[in-house]
């Protein structure tokens, strides 16, 4: 029996300012959905930066449904996969960091994705990529980025990086839990890769090798 066609669900996250967008642009053959834009749409705000100071958590369920819809659309159209551009950890009410999507919502999204893949006769491959940077680099990038209103409490850089790293592991756990019980023809075990974006060319190369190996 020929191997199942693969559908790649990429989840790429990291602290604001680590250079995630630049690396995502290197994986241009996969369509992308941004959770910040989804939250913004639901919160009807003019600027994505305003999300940091409001209770976006109230819209998690709605955003998870949007993500499921986006994944379904790509699978139905026979596309190779989709990238979810997100933060593994985000500030709530401009205060402490918490996981970007509640763990129950991550599990629900993952379960939906693997069921969908199974329904359409494709094998789901989940690739979670955590993009990070040295705190001093992130501080400098945030200072120089005048296109967005960045938090410039210096300790915030340290906290943002460490919480995103911690929470990326929780995303992996929930995806792994969701695919448990499915066979290798339906879902491959999810993989988590950490990319340190200190040298852009090297980071782009690492990003491409994560996804190029999966998408033919």
């Amino acid at each position, binding site marked *: 029996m020929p191997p199942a066609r693969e559908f790649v669900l990429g989840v790429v996250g990291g602290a604001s300012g680590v250079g995630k967008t630049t690396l995502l642009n290197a994986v241009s053959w996969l369509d992308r959905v941004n959770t910040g834009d989804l939250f913004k749409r639901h919160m009807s705000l003019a600027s994505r930066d305003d999300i940091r100071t409001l209770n976006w958590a109230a819209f998690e369920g709605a955003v998870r449904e949007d993500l499921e819809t986006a994944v379904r659309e790509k699978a139905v159209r026979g596309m190779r996969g989709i990238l979810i551009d997100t933060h593994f950890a985000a500030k709530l009410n401009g205060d402490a960091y918490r996981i970007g999507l509640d763990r129950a919502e991550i599990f629900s999204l993952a379960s939906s994705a693997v069921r969908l893949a199974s329904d359409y006769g494709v094998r789901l491959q989940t690739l979670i990529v955590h993009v990070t940077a040295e*705190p*001093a680099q992130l*501080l*400098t990038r*945030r*200072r*120089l*980025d*005048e296109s967005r*209103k*960045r*938090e*410039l*409490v*210096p*300790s915030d850089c*340290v*906290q943002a990086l460490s919480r995103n790293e911690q929470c990326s592991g929780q995303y992996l756990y929930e995806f792994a839990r969701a695919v448990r019980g499915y066979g290798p023809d339906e879902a491959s075990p999810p993989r988590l890769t950490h990319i340190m974006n200190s040298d852009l060319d090297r980071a782009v190369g690492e990003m491409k090798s994560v996804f190029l190996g999966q998408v033919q």
Partner: protein
Amino acid sequence: MNPFVWTNDPDVAKKEQTALRKLVATEHPDGEGWQFKKGLAIGTAYDENTRRAVAVALEFDPSGRYSRISRSADVEVDFPYVPGLLAFRVGPAICKLLDEQDDDYDLLLFDGQGIAHPRGIGLASHIGVLYGKPSIGVTRNRLFGEALEPPIQANAASPIYHPSSREIVGYSWVPGESTPAIFVSPGNLIDPKEALQLVRGITRPNSSFPTCLARAHGMANTARRQMLRKRDKQDNLGEHDD
């Protein structure tokens, strides 16, 4: 360039220091024997009446010769005097100064502590981390750490130890004959011994303190007094408006 946010809450300030302490490095990426080309001696002052912090920068070279030209900045800062939190009182003025400064300096020198500090991040370390530059703190008073008094002879030095880890966090140093000891601690990207050697190199024989830093500090205090006189003059003019 987006400015740094500075809290005016001492408890939040201490948490900020604890978080930033992780970024302090006590060695230069180029290793031992690293030489600086252009330093900035930063003097600061705070005026309680106007609630303004002043910072003055003087360029200096490896021999300690300093420029006649100085740059200064002053900003309104509402932060109380709390030992160990000087950065939150004068830091905003220093940042305003450095943000307007060309990035062609490779050493910062402060009248303040480096890592010889209760939370390991005095003024010199704090600003060194924010700007990613090597930095050193030199003070006339020891805030933290245990040290034997060095022998009373020119150029004698004794280490300052962290009370728990026993790590060397600075040096107590007698610059000249009959001068009291001063305290040198690395801020960022320099180790304690190199910091001491560097400060020795820029201090004139028999001076009691590195001259460039004493001058910058003096200029900051002069600027503070001028601010106060200007305010008093404006207040007096206001009284005659009736």
